[in-house]
């Protein structure tokens, strides 16, 4: 009987955060620690001719400078990795730029000094000579043969092309009554975590042991990256409280960990590097700008027979995350629909802008944007309601578990049910009446209704589907562990397998374990920070990919179940009963109805660690359990075969979103009147936590749609290096998102739980676009491009496109 799972439970992380006792990387000080600054390129595209640190090194408080020559001599490049497996020739990517710089802000070296001010002063004294090259900022210009190639090894900026087809797409288009087409654009943006990159590196030369404290989401990237680049065997990765991740702190951060580690090795001192906001905005990583041409083959009754799309991805100045926004579309390729044929084609173009990273949802917001804009377009073309068109194509609840054409298996979900509840909650028909009245008064009110699936739990072999040349899986499925220890005093200590960036891992795992062990969450503590030496971690150890709900909850569930067995066995031995006669209540093991027959956790602890004669001979002493979890329903299609079908992810949450907006005719500003989500996250372990994820991810998607984003000049200079210029929203600009839960528990996970982290970030840009287009319907304009800024709306209203592209 679940006492804690599903109910409100006091936050374990809260008390330290509200008293300023969170332990973030910058809060650590080590004796003799130096402060670092990164030397960065001021050019978007240039050859590095020379780097002279001599003037900077005159000051004795400047301890070391790392130059491109050092990086080349002292480190090995990172291997291309699973996102660049399809490169015609593997391209070396060092931690810092060695011959060429390819984006403003690209790191080319580093300096370590006694204090931060001295390091910043020293940076200005390092003389660097560049030979500027022509920058590429526009995807279509960049792929012209006349453009300057970013990578000479490739000879072209079209770094990768690939396609996948599922079902008979030709037949679908041949038998269509109509083909509906549209061109869509999404811009560069990111979740810009409030804490930028932070690294502390400390090297013990005699033992050849490197320890790093780092703001990272995926320990494996750091661990493998350091071992690869620095040829080290003994690497310890410690991840303290992280001030937001959102996918920013996965890939690019490994470059900085290597550079800072080099400084630590060179100086023999611990070195700390704290990134500035402006650095992060220009070089921390962006979500990819995508240009898509989509076509839907439809029947007159609204059935979608097939979807084709071709996308150009602006991936910036690195090849390491080349295909990430394309390949992740496999996760929600079908969205919530049973369309039997899909063709996807990707073109990854390198440009002289910040490299792209897997920001919240990666590729999936784009995929959902394609689907949901096309559904509206189909409705318009066929003169049907956009609700009806969606209903016509939704996978039904009684078809679950549902195998999609690309190999995903949707575990559970009632998409028509979510839509129905959504329309009831917003009183849809009444809203349309209100809209009619508003239009008569010249007011522009709009309603956008969209639905999106939210995949969860990563499969490490997924990318093989787009790379037929990949013979060996880089990993497959997922593996992550956890340990629970009943301490001598009867309290419980959790050792989790993943770091966290604020998703209440400590609170939710305590609830899960408390239910299984018959204890209460207040008796649990979690060992923090994440420490690769101590943690039972595997490839799924990641605060990303919507992994926690599956792998970490699964691991804790498994460990708690094992520990419960041990507790019962030891208790039974001491109470002289059978384990099956026992229950656990409030950390006391007892025979129901027999007051004398009970033993507390504390008593059991004292026995397990101290009293050999009270431990059965066939039982191991101590009371702890470790469990490594793999998803038991990962097959079939865990590794794609010749048909390229693959379980891109393993569990499938979903949400139906309603955006109600009003557009100011004179200024083009969009005001969100109401935003409601009816969501299915499976069994909700902690409602406050899940609500928080829904509110936060929705707020970001709404802000992305309405204007936040990165911009570049035609010379490749980043124009948005402050939050203000980038357009980040405060509470004053953010609408109050409402969330209603209508879960369909997963039949495959430990407790029926599904993901919630990426959540509402996936459908929300489409919801806003749909609502604004609906508001502008009297003007007959289409909304196909993000962001929907006031000026963009004003131009649509006045049929006044910009004469020329000013920024990118």
């Amino acid at each position: 009987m679940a006492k804690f799972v599903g109910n409100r439970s006091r936050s374990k992380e809260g008390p330290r955060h509200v008293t300023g006792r969170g332990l973030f990387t910058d809060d650590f000080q080590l004796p003799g620690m130096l402060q670092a600054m990164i030397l960065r390129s001021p050019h978007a595209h240039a050859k590095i001719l020379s780097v002279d640190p001599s003037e900077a090194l005159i000051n004795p408080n400047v301890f070391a400078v790392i130059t491109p020559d050092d990086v080349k001599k002292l480190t090995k490049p990172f291997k291309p990795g699973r996102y660049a497996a399809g490169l015609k020739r593997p391209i070396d990517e060092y931690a810092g730029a060695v011959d060429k710089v390819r984006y403003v802000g690209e790191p080319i070296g580093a300096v370590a000094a006694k204090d931060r001010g001295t390091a910043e002063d020293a940076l200005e004294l390092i003389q660097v000579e560049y030979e500027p090259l022509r920058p590429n900022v526009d995807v279509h210009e960049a792929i012209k043969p006349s453009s300057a190639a970013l990578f000479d090894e490739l000879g072209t900026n079209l770094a990768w092309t690939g396609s996948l087809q599922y079902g008979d797409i030709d037949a679908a288009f041949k038998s269509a009554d109509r083909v509906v087409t549209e061109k869509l654009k999404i811009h560069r943006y990111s979740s810009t975590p409030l804490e930028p990159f932070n690294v502390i590196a400390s090297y013990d030369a005699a033992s050849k042991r490197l320890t790093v404290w780092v703001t990272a989401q995926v320990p494996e990237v750091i661990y493998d990256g350091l071992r690869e680049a620095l040829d080290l065997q003994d690497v310890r990765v410690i991840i303290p409280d992280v001030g937001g991740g959102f996918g920013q702190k996965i890939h690019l951060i490994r470059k900085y960990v290597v550079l800072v580690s080099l400084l630590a090795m060179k100086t023999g001192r611990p070195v700390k590097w704290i990134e500035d906001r402006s650095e992060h905005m220009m070089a921390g990583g962006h979500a990819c700008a995508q240009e898509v041409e989509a076509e839907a083959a439809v029947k007159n009754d609204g059935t979608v027979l097939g979807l084709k799309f071709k996308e150009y991805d602006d991936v910036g100045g690195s090849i390491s995350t080349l295909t990430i926004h394309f390949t992740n579309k496999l996760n929600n390729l079908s969205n919530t629909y049973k369309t039997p044929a899909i063709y996807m084609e990707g073109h990854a173009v390198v440009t002289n802008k910040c490299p792209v990273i897997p920001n919240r949802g990666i590729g999936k917001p784009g995929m959902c944007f394609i689907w949901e804009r096309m559904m509206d377009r189909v409705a318009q073309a066929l003169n049907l309601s956009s609700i009806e068109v969606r209903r016509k194509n939704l996978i039904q609840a009684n078809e679950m578990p549902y195998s999609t054409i690309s190999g995903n298996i949707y575990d559970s979900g009632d998409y028509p049910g979510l839509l129905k509840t959504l329309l009831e909650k917003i009183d849809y028909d009444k809203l349309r009446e209100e809209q009619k009245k508003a239009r008569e008064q010249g007011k522009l009110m709009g309603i956008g209704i969209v639905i999106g699936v939210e995949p969860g739990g990563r499969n490490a072999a997924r990318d093989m589907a787009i790379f037929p040349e990949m013979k060996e899986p880089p990993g497959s499925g997922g593996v992550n562990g956890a340990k629970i220890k009943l301490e001598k005093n009867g309290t419980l200590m959790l050792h989790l397998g993943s770091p966290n960036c604020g998703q209440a891992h400590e609170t939710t795992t305590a609830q899960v374990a408390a239910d299984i062990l018959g204890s209460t969450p207040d008796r649990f503590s979690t060992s923090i920070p994440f420490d690769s030496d101590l943690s039972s971690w595997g490839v799924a150890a990641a605060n990303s990919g919507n992994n926690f709900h599956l792998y970490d909850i699964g691991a804790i569930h498994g460990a708690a179940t094992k520990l419960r067995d041990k507790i019962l066995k030891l208790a039974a031995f001491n109470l002289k009963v059978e384990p099956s006669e026992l229950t656990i209540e409030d950390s006391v093991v007892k025979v129901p109805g027999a007051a004398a027959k009970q033993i507390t956790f504390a008593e059991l602890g004292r026995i397990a660690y101290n009293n050999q004669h009270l431990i059965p001979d066939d039982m191991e002493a101590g009371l702890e359990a470790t469990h490594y979890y793999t998803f038991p329903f990962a097959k079939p299609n865990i590794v794609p075969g010749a048909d390229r079908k693959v379980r891109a992810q393993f569990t499938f949450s979903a949400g139906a979103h309603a955006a109600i907006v009003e557009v100011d005719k004179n200024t083009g500003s969009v005001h969100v009147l109401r935003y409601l989500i009816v969501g299915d996250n499976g069994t909700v372990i902690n409602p406050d936590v899940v609500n928080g994820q829904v509110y936060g991810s929705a707020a970001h998607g709404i802000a992305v749609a309405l204007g936040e984003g990165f911009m570049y000049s035609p010379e490749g200079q980043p124009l948005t290096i402050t939050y203000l210029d980038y357009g980040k929203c405060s509470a004053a600009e953010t609408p109050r998102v409402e969330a209603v839960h209508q879960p369909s528990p997963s039949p495959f996970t430990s407790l029926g739980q599904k993901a919630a982290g990426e959540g509402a970030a996936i459908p929300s840009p489409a919801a806003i676009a749909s609502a604004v287009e609906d508001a502008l319907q009297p003007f007959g304009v289409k909304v196909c491009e993000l962001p929907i800024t006031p000026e963009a709306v004003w131009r649509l209203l006045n049929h006044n496109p910009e004469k020329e592209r000013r920024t990118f």
Partner: protein
Amino acid sequence: MKQTIGVTVNGRLYEEEVEPRILLSHFLRETIGLTGTHIGCVIGECGACSVLLDGKVVKSCLHFAVQADGREITTIEGLAKDGQLNPVQEAFVKNYAFQCGYCTPGMVMTSQALLQKNPNPSEEEIRKALAGNLCMCTGYVQIVDAVKEAAKGMKNG
């Protein structure tokens, strides 16, 4: 040239020698070791570094330590007494008005300052008062709810 300054922080006088260019935020974090005040930006636009200066909420990163000579500062560490959370802190914990916790100290200080000035703010007033405190995680809903609850709690003493 370094200067000696005397700054009272959370009721305690600190006398330290500082370079003029040291920011108050770094003084708090590094010179006197109170790391609860966080730094999230450069030009003072995110509010993570918010503290009370002579009772008014300010951004400690837009202030040199030398300017604080003779002044009184309250940081996040100065709110709870002996581990007992004050009404704003308690409301934040209860309402899950945080996720990663990085903006939280600044958010709590600004909320504290708001309620000291305006004990019964409307939702609109709360949102405007928090306009200088950015959060990337929460979408602000639970933060606003926490401030409302704290207001009720403070009213009831």
